[in-house]
C-alpha cells in the first residue's frame, strides 16, 4: 500500500500557483498555438485545480515539480475540452500533436527551465534601448504599429529590429547553456 503523500492547504496552493504561473501559461500557449485565449484556459485550469486541491498529494521530494506536473495535466484536459467546445479552429493543432507537445514539455522541463533562467540573464545584457523595445512589444503588449508610430519608424524597421534582438537573445541563451554544459 502506498504511503500517503504530502498534501497542500489553500495558502500553499496560492503560493504555488503564483510561483509557477509562468510555466502554466507557457504550457497552455504551447498547446494552444496562439497567445489569444490563454487566459481562459489557464483560468479554467486553476479553478479545476482549486476544486481538486484535496486530491493532490506529493510522493516525491520535488514538491514543486510534482505540483507543476499535476497542474499541467489538468490544463491539458482543459485545453482539449476547450478545443471540443469551441471547435478545432480555435486550437492550431490536432490532438496527436497536442499530446506530443505536452509530453515534450513535461519530459524536458529541466531544459526549458534552464533556457528561461538564461533568458533572464540575457535580457540584462541587452542595451537599454533594445530592452525597452522588447518589453514594449512582449511585456507591455504594444502593437508593432504603435511602436512604429511612437518611434517614428517604419513597420518593417520595427519588425527587423525585433528580429535582430530575438536572434541575439537566442544566441545568448544557447551560448549560456553551452557554458553550463546543457
Amino acid at each position: 500500500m502506498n504511503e500517503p503523500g504530502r498534501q497542500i492547504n489553500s495558502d500553499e496552493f496560492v503560493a504555488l500557483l503564483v510561483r509557477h504561473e509562468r510555466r502554466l501559461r507557457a504550457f497552455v500557449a504551447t498547446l494552444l498555438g496562439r497567445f489569444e485565449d490563454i487566459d481562459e484556459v489557464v483560468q479554467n485550469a486553476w479553478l479545476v485545480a482549486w476544486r481538486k486541491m484535496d486530491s493532490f498529494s506529493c510522493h516525491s521530494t520535488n514538491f514543486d515539480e510534482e505540483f507543476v506536473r499535476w497542474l499541467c495535466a489538468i490544463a491539458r484536459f482543459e485545453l482539449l475540452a476547450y478545443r471540443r467546445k469551441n471547435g478545432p479552429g480555435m486550437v492550431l493543432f490536432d490532438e496527436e500533436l497536442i499530446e506530443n507537445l505536452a509530453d515534450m514539455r513535461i519530459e524536458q522541463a529541466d531544459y526549458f527551465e534552464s533556457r528561461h533562467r538564461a533568458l533572464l540573464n540575457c535580457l540584462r545584457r541587452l542595451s537599454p534601448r533594445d530592452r525597452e523595445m522588447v518589453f514594449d512589444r512582449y511585456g507591455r503588449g504594444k502593437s508593432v504599429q504603435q511602436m512604429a508610430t511612437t518611434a517614428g519608424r517604419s513597420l518593417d524597421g520595427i519588425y527587423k529590429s525585433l528580429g535582430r534582438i530575438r536572434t541575439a537573445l537566442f544566441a545568448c541563451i544557447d551560448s549560456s547553456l553551452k557554458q553550463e554544459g546543457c
Partner: protein
Amino acid sequence: MTAASDDMKELDELLQRMCDSCLDAVAAARLAEILASSKAAQRRYIEYMDYCIGIAHALPGIDENDRLLPRQSASTILPFDAPRYPPSSAADPTPMLSVAVNDRTRLSRKQTISIPRFSLLRSLLYPMTRAPLRMWAAAVLLLCLLGAPWMLRALRPVVVQPAPVESLTADAANLESDFAARIIGMTSDTTWENPGAKVDALLRFKTHETIHVLTGLVRIEFVSGAKVILQAPAVFTPTGPDSGQLDRGRLTGKATNGNFRLTTKAAEVIDLGTEFGVAVDDVTGTDVLVFDGEVEVVPRAAGPDAGRVLKMTEGMAARITPTGSAVHDFPAEPGGFSRSITSLGNRDKDNELSLVDVICGGNGFDNNLAGAIDPRTGKPDSGVWLRSWGAGRRKGAAFNLITHCPPLDAVFIPFIGGEATQVDSLGNKIVLPCFTSQTFGPIWARRSTKGLDTAGEGIDFWGPDTFKDVNQRLQSTRHGVIGLQANVGFTVDLQAVRMRQHCDVTGFEAVIALLAAYKDRQQRDPAKTLVDFRVYVDGVLRTSRLSIKRADGDIRVAVSLTPVDQRITLVSTDADESILFDELVLIDPILMLDRSTRSQSSE
C-alpha cells in the same frame, strides 16, 4: 542546404511571425505540418513560446488595454483574490454541519437541522470576493452594529443537564510546549502596567505569566491556534496551550478548532468552535456573548445555577453574577467588543515593503510583531514556537521552498567545500566560502514593541546575551530587525511582490550589524568573530560586506533592482572557523516599491 534545414529556417520565420501575432491561416497550417513531422521542430517551437511568454512574465504589466500577453489579467490576479469559498463541484466534499436552532417558546428543547457545509455559502460568497475587502468588512461591521444587539436580547441560552467539563478533549493540552501563547498584534496606543517588563524575544508567554494591559488592544495566539483580543484595561493569564484566565477587562475569543477554555471568577466558558465575547466586572460578574458558533458556560460560584451547563449559540447572551446566577435580561453590548485590530498602524500605502513582516509570515505590510522560520524545514518554526531553545543548532546543508508566505521564496543553509547551493525556486545556485554547514537557531524577525523589552539575559534561543543589544536597536527601528546567524539565507520572490502589490520593485535596502555579545566575554578573540554578508539577484552576486566585526557598527547595504530581476537572496556566512558569536542582524530591511507603475496601469 538539406530539406531539414530548409524546414527549420522556414520554421523560424513562421515562429517569428507567430510571436509578432501575424500568422495567417495558411502559415498556421504550414506550421502545424512542420511540427507534426519533426521532434526537433517541436522543441524549437516550445523554445519560441517560452521566449515570448518568458519576456512577458519578466516585468510587471503596465498597459491594461492593449496587450499581446496580458499579465494582470483575471487569471493572474486570481491567486491573491482566490476566494476561500469557491463554487462547489462534484469533486468537492460537502461535510454536514449540525446547527442548533432555538426559539423563545421552546427554550428547553433543542432542534437540529443539517445543511451542507460551505457548498451554498461558497456559491454565494464567490462573487462577493470580487468586491474590495474593505467594502465587505464595512458591510459586516454595519450589520453587527445594527443587528446584533437586537439578536442578543431576543435569544436566550438553552440550559441543559450538567456535563463534566473535563470530558472535553483538548488536543492542544497534549502538546509539549514551553509556552502557552504569544502576542501577535497590538494597537499603537497599547500601554502596559509594568513598562520595561521583560518578555520573551518572540513575545511568547509561559503558562501562568500574567499580561497586564492598561490601554489599547492586544491580540494573542495560543499554541492550540485559538486567538483572543484583549481590551484594556485587562489582566489576563494564559493557563495552558488552549486556556486562559481573565481577571479584568474584555476579551473576544476565536477558536476554529474549538475547545478553548476561558476562566473568570464567576464562570467557565468553553468554546466549541466559535467566536465569543467575555466581559469581567467585579460587581456585575461575567457577561458572555456569542457572535458565531457554540459556547458552553458553567457558573462557578455556589448558587442556583451552579454546575449547570448553559449551551449558547450565535446571537445569545448571558450574565453570570458573582453569586452564581445566570441572568438573561441585561443590556448586552456586542458593539463594545473589538473583534479585529489594526496592529501598529496601517501601512497599505507605504512604498517600503518590510522584510521583517515577510519573515513574520506577512505580506510585507501586515505589521506582524514576531516570527521565525526553521531553515532546515522552511516552516514557521514550531520549534521556535514551542521551545525556549528554538531551532537549536542546525547541521548540514538544506534548501527549502517556502509555501506559507508568497513573498518568501526559499530558505537555505549553504554547502561547504565549494559545492553549489540552490537558493531559489528558479534553480539558481551559488557557491559560498563558508567553513561549516551549520547554523544556530532560526531566521527570526521582530518589530519594535513600545514598552515591552525583550529579555536578554543568559543563553536564549539565538545567542548568548545578544537580545540586550537587539532590544536597544529595536527601539530606533521603523520596521524591526531580522536575525541571521552565520550560514543561513533566504530568498524573496520579486515577481510575487510585483504581482501582489501591482507595482515595480526598485531596490533593496538595509543596515546590517554584528550584535555578537563577545565584548563581554574576554576569552573570545574578536578577530575570530567575523561574518560575511552577500546579496544575490537571480544567483548573481550584487553586493557583499565581508569580514564584518562588531566594531564595524552599522553598515548600510543597498542594491538597485530592475524589472527583469526575479529573486533576491540575502545570505550570511561565517568568515572564520566557527559560527560562535556570529549573530548578524538586518535592521529595517526593505524592498522599495515604485507605485507609479500601478497608477499607470489603472489609468
